[in-house]
């Protein structure tokens, strides 16, 4: 809109003569500062407890300087070596020097562990050679190989060259059942050592199954919640929320009591003659146990978003559909269900994302084949102490979740999501 007065007298001014735009910006700035200052503590907390740790961990997935820190000479020599030809005397000299120092500083264990991650079975090679390093004489290549002929194996040297690089894709390669090699780049891991992809896949399948089961079980419950008269629906709501008020551990152990082979369900089956006493069902410490317990624990996360969406659908839609000639089933499928899609999407995404990172329940009731990728991450964090690999696994998991989120946004739209 062009105002003739504006054209003549330049920008509109406020009562005190400052240009109106500037005045407005000032006014908005003050209120914005106030708003921001209110969220600063939360922002700082989130930054310190969430964003920074995540980035730190992600960084560990591609950066590991343990080897190069403790073997400065060797790392220097390895970086000069092309990794294709035979290792020369210089390398062995550096090796012996670093091993001697490492033994004195008691850091040999760390070096051995790090190389062992890259080339399993080499741990004792380092510790034993380090023990003898003091007595070794030049030429070192010969004497070192004499102590253990594994030193003649070029693969050991190549593994060391890989580990000497601080910034490395090798953990991600491992996490995807591959290996990063000096000579051939990325190669597939040996058949019998491929575990992670299978585990990712299993995690994905179990999460999808749990999500599907939650939807199957939760949809009717949410429907009842939304349509029952207030008094009965309140009671039902309390039963839905009850799990939230009980410790996760208690609930999981309750499942152990129910599902184990001497547990309630098996006793009942035997008592009813459905199964013989010596062929009780194994319902726990396997994938079945994980799925049952996780479905139970995640069910409220499906029911609540569904309920909040269903609550807003007035009964007149179903009535309208019926008056227009649709059978109850058709009215439900064509008119009711499509309107609950935002709830299905929200609940499904929530349950799936929670399931994909679930840890305690599979650890307690999962047995061998009910373990998820998060159990493997925990293993590498706590037992094998291979944090970099744990970080790589976690990074892949995170990427997977983000990818799912993106697909969801593409298909259904995040702003369609209703969480309550």
């Amino acid at each position, binding site marked *: 809109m062009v105002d003739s007065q504006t054209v003549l007298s330049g920008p509109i001014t406020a009562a005190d003569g400052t240009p109106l735009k500037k005045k407005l910006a000032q006014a908005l700035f003050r209120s914005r500062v106030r708003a921001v200052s209110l969220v600063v503590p939360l922002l700082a907390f989130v930054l310190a407890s969430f964003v920074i740790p995540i980035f730190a961990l992600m960084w560990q997935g591609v950066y590991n300087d343990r080897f190069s820190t403790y073997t400065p000479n060797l790392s220097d020599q390895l970086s000069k070596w092309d990794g294709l030809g035979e290792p020369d005397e210089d390398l062995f000299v550096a090796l012996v020097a670093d091993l001697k120092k490492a033994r004195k500083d008691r850091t040999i264990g760390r070096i051995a562990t790090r190389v062992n991650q890259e080339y399993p079975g080499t741990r004792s090679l380092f510790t034993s050679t380090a023990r003898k390093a003091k007595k070794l004489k030049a030429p070192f290549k010969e004497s070192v190989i004499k102590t253990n002929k594994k030193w003649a194996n070029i693969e050991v040297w190549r593994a060391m060259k890989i580990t000497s690089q601080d910034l490395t894709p090798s953990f991600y390669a491992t996490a995807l059942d591959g290996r990063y090699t000096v000579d051939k780049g990325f190669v597939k891991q040996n058949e019998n050592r491929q575990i992670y992809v299978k585990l990712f896949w299993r995690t994905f399948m179990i999460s999808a199954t749990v999500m599907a089961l939650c939807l199957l079980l939760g949809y009717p419950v949410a429907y009842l919640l939304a349509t029952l008269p207030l008094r009965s629906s309140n009671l039902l709501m309390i039963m839905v929320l009850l799990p939230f008020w009980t410790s996760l551990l208690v609930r999981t152990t309750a499942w152990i009591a129910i599902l184990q082979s001497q547990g309630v369900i098996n006793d009942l089956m035997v008592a009813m003659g459905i199964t013989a006493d010596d062929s009780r069902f194994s319902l726990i410490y396997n994938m079945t146990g994980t799925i049952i317990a996780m479905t139970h624990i995640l069910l409220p996360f499906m029911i609540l978003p569904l309920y909040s969406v269903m609550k807003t659908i*007035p009964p*007149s*839609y179903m*009535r*309208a*559909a*019926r*008056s*227009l*000639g*649709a*059978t*109850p089933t*058709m*009215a439900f499928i*064509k*008119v009711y269900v*499509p*309107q609950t*899609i935002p709830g299905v999407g929200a609940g499904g995404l929530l349950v799936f994302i929670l399931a994909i990172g679930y840890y305690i329940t599979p650890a307690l009731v999962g047995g061998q084949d009910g373990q998820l990728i998060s159990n493997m991450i925990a293993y590498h964090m706590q037992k094998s102490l291979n944090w970099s690999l744990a970080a790589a696994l976690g990074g892949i998991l995170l990427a997977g979740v983000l990818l799912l989120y993106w697909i969801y946004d593409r298909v259904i739209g995040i702003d369609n999501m209703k969480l309550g």
Partner: protein
Amino acid sequence: MVQAKDPFVSFKGVQKSYDGETLVVKNLNLDIASGEFLTMLGPSGSGKTTCLMMLAGFETATHGDIELGGSPINNIPPHKRGIGMVFQNYALFPHMTVGENLAFPLNVRKVPKAEVEEKVRSVLDMVQMNAFIDRKPAQLSGGQQQRIALARALVFSPELVLMDEPLGALDKQLREHMQYEIKHIHENLGVTVVYVTHDQSEALTMSNRIAVFDDGVIQQLADPVTLYEKPENSFVAQFIGENNQMVGTVKSVSKGIATINLDSGAEVKALAVNISGVGSRTTLSVRPERCVVLTKKSATVSRLDAKIEELIYLGDHIRCRMNVAGDDQFIMKVPNTSGQLGLEIGASLQIGWQNNDCRALDFKELV
């Protein structure tokens, strides 16, 4: 109104209770002729929606029969009744476009695709909404949604269409406009319409007949003119249009004209419509436009002293609030003829009416 030999819809002794303690609909008997526009009019909570829902099949009658085209439909589920329905909040499916909404009743009937398209187009033409076929309901204004809801209820050519306060959410001007449109569509298509409203002017403009509901009972069933001119009880007289009420005791009745002693002491005459006999209490009802200012020579028998409290000039007539027989809310509409302009606040005069213009009805305590 001619009572059809074979009513299209008929309620026979229908009762309805939700809680088993109170009857929401009490002994409803109602015949609706084919092609008729019947309106259920009544205050909130009088059971109008309940009747409509029983007809549509969403509520079951506790007692009695509902017949459609001569056969009872008590056990027929809603989707097999073939009744079009317009809901108060329109109930357009939010996840479907206008076109899909309109195609819905045809698709569930497995109508061939080409025919669906053609019918949707023609019904959209009828409500003049052709340009909006690809919009979602949320992108339409209230009046536009209302038209689509109407079109959807008509697209599968039902013989009976039910409308539950379809214009309730619209502003006054749009409501009046839509009243005429619905009326025209009814006339053009010849469908039977059962219409629910609690707006009496809406009922008077649109209907062939009006059933006035109160407390689960039809108080009067008649065409608009009869309802206005000849209310049968004091509830109808009070509910339809404006009227003045006075209470008194019947002194005598002769040739259908009752003489009544008003509680204020005056004696007036009125048409005996709904009184139980000499000595019984009665409520008199007279329309504001039927009262006249009396001169010495006037011939009417009913003469009451009045004092003007307030005058409102409305152009074609003057609305005159006065104190008559102890009631200071007595309203009279004085036509704006040159001779009458001497009215003044505080002036005392005498008013009266023709015997037939005042109706002696059942007694009801004044509120």
